[in-house]
């Protein structure tokens, strides 16, 4: 069934869709196994579309009781070896920072799509790109995360696929930033099967319940994020940062436009 499903994915084709739909299709193209989520504007159609696509492609979906749970369920799905993701916005992003801090500390390759919005959960939803700081630095500082920021529907599609690869290759929680306008606006983009384009998909593997006998075939899976001493924690965080710095050059991306004649380039970030 899976093979038949994959065939369906993904004839390369120009389509007309919303940003949220582009994300859902990209997750299918990236061979994501399951989405955990909770409804919130303007993320909803990622969930709606994923749930329309999931039965056609043999994928899973679980609506949890809130975003705290959706974040931790995503962590749990990944620990079980699933290519799992979630998507949320604003207040949901705040609630998921706890689970994402855990993912940072334990290098759990979650993928999370953020459709940025304004307004706490009690307020009116007006869109803007005001979750860059929260998404980049919302954790408790005991680990590292990777955040891609997109500018178009095509980039939403491309970078959602890439986020799964980055997460599983480097084992850092990975985020894709869009915004509410992208979510709802419609434009044309090309959807494709990454495999058809020669993009290798980094395989998943379970963190827990691996094959073999502990101590005979393999060491125990020792997953831990509680520490007694500052010094002990310092070593852990130091190692995480060193690990990131060792591969940072492979991960960091930017595009220079009309900078050839600049002697000094000042980059401003919120």
């Amino acid at each position, binding site marked *: 069934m899976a093979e038949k499903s994959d065939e369906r994915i993904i004839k390369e*084709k*120009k*389509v*007309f869709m919303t940003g949220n739909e582009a994300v859902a299709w990209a997750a299918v193209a990236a061979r994501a196994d399951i989405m955990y989520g909770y409804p919130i*504007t303007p993320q*909803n159609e990622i969930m709606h579309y994923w749930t329309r696509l999931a039965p056609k492609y043999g994928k899973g979906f679980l609506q949890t009781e809130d975003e705290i749970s959706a974040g931790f369920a995503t962590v749990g799905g990944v620990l079980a070896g699933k290519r799992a993701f979630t998507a949320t916005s604003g207040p949901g992003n705040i609630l998921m920072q706890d689970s994402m801090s855990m993912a940072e500390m334990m290098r759990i390759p979650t993928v999370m799509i953020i459709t940025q919005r304004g307004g706490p959960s009690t307020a009116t939803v007006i869109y803007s790109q005001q979750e860059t700081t929260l998404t980049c630095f919302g954790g408790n500082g005991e680990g590292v995360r990777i955040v891609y920021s997109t500018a178009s529907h095509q980039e939403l599609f491309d970078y959602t696929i890439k986020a799964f690869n980055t997460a599983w290759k480097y084992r850092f929680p990975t985020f894709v930033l869009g915004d509410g306008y992208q979510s*709802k606006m*419609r434009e*044309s983009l090309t959807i494709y099967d990454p495999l058809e384009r020669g993009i290798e998909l980094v395989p998943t593997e379970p963190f827990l319940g691996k094959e073999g006998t502990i101590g005979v075939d393999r060491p125990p899976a020792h997953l831990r994020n509680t520490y007694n001493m500052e010094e002990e924690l310092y070593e852990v965080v130091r190692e995480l940062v060193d690990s990131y710095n060792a591969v940072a050059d492979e991960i960091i991306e930017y595009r220079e436009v009309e900078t050839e004649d600049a002697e000094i380039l000042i980059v401003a970030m919120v």
Partner: protein
Amino acid sequence: MDKLREAYVGEYASGKSEVAINRALELHRQGRKVRLVDLDLVEPFYTLRPIKKELEDKGLDVIAWATGEITGLGETGSLLKPEMKWAFKYGGDVVLDIGYGVKGVQVINLLEGLEDESPLKIFAVINVARPLTASVEDIVEYVGTLGKVDGLINNSHLGDETDEEIIKEGAYIVSKAALKLNIPVIATTVAREFAHLVGDKDCMGNPVKILDLHMRKAFW
């Protein structure tokens, strides 16, 4: 003169509102009295609300909330404006712009006078560049979920990247789906900026109608 009653239904972002507005304005240009009703209770984005006044200024009788009249821009559902329930009580043509999918269509049941006078024609707007209505089989299955549908409209396009190929592909696929559903293709619709790509009829012989785009400014 018989009063016309038409409802435009279909897949999310298929172009229902644009087609409904243009139909209402077409009837108005023919000297008919026309009411256009925003019955999209599914989602508050790209509805008639932001352009209600503009459409009224063009001579249409518009029943819609205006942006700012109701609160809540989330997907918390939308209130049925009381006048919407009585939209058919009107001495002219009535064009209904319906929210997407099966849930969207159900709103029609809330209207009074559905069975009176001339029957309501329900037309499904299809864009084959929308992946879930891209093939004959998908369209037949999707339209089947909507209940009674009297005709299809081929509104296949790729936004700014629309070309002759997508319009033709749409005409071909939608015509084949219509044949299977045993309903007619009412028209192929094409945005005015791409009108030069088509003639009076599409490649399958369906009439072509040119759309003036109003919905781009209707984000919310």
